[in-house]
């Protein structure tokens, strides 16, 4: 995300430039609100798992440094409250029909329960990882695991296909959905047993974009 928040948080190492921006933020309520709004948007995107890994790390550091990590949990809670609100707006007739099903479907209709947040791991293509050790992905029993597959160059368009394979090329997990902006998120359908895996990111036309190597540990 390229915006004023990023500029102020990270890329503004020029003290004169930072000084000028700080003075404007003290003088201008609208600019201050704009930056605050962008900060909130970053937090919400992080909570939704939509922030690129490097931005997520930057935001996390900012919130940790200022004692505001609790805002992440609030953002997740706010998102689930919004989901509950949308669900409550279903047509009246469907609502009546739901009453008859409620005895059978109580677990499904617990709309106020917070959504499970995936534990996310960022992976870089082999060509970018260099000599760095193979990243480890840990499966959490009660939460889904997601892989953020970062692109080496520009983001592809259309749908992306992800295939998770073991060394003997047996496909363990495959998905197809729209490609992301800075990375593509693949959420595991089921926990993988410990071992070494590759994730192949391809276009729907079959063009292999990147291969990501990772180890799954307990």
């Amino acid at each position, binding site marked *: 995300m390229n915006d004023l928040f990023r500029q102020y*948080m*990270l890329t503004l190492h020029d003290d004169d430039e930072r*000084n000028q921006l*700080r*003075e*404007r*933020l*003290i003088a201008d*309520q*609208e600019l*201050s*609100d*704009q*930056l*605050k*709004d962008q*900060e*909130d*948007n970053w937090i919400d*995107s*992080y909570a*939704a798992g*939509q922030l690129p*890994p490097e931005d*997520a*790390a*930057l935001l*996390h*550091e*900012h919130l*940790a*440094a*200022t*004692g*505001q*990590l*609790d*805002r*992440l*949990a*609030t953002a*997740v*809670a*706010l*998102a*689930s*409250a*919004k989901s509950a*609100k*949308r669900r409550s707006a279903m047509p009246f007739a469907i609502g009546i029909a739901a009453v008859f099903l409620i005895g059978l479907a109580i677990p499904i209709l617990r709309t*106020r329960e*917070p959504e*499970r*947040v995936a*534990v*996310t*791991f960022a992976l870089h293509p082999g060509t970018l990882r260099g000599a760095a050790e193979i*990243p480890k992905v840990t499966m959490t029993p009660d*939460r889904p695991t997601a892989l*953020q597959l970062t692109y080496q160059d520009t983001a592809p368009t259309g749908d992306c296909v992800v295939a998770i394979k073991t060394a003997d090329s047996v496909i363990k997990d495959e998905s197809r959905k729209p490609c992301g902006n800075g990375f593509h998120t693949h959420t595991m359908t089921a926990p993988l047993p410990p071992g070494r895996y590759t994730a192949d990111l391809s276009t729907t036309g079959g063009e292999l974009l990147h291969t990501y190597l990772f180890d799954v540990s307990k």
Partner: protein
Amino acid sequence: MSPKWALTAESFDRLLAALHPDRAEAAVRYEALHERLVRVFRWEHAVDPESLADDALTRLARRLDEGESVLSIPAFLNGIARNLLKEEGARRQRLQPLTDVPAPPSESEVEHHHAALETCLATWEPAKRDLLLAYYQGDQSARILNRQKLATDLGLELNALRNRALRLRERLETCIRKQIGRDTPSSNSTTDRKGKP
């Protein structure tokens, strides 16, 4: 400058008068200025933004009390802010991005926040609750259109809508912190989610 200087009712009145001739309007401007200073100090990763904002305005009041001519209050406050940030520089750190992505909040933490959020929102007027939920509805791309439609529906400019939503969110976050026993943002745990204290 005398080291024994302290903020008095007279010096505070002088500060308000410098902000606006009308006292009520001056009080509004003071509050807004204080809020902007808190934000700036927080974005600069100050350890205690609230108290630094208080210090900055007290220093401004002192200069005015001592007869200093202040042509631009924001420029003057920025100079004070820069000095205050230098003074606590040892406590601050310039951010270095992490090398990997930290874990999101735990499920139990989210559940606590969700329960607190429900409690807080239950006491709100429906119109305010609906505005907050509608403003933050959808992902990044959908939000722009949502907010434009919401502003049209409410007969507001986008800036005015944003202003209201920001304040409602701040109010909600403050309420949630109180509900879960955290009175100030800086009083909560800053434990690194990667396990480091």
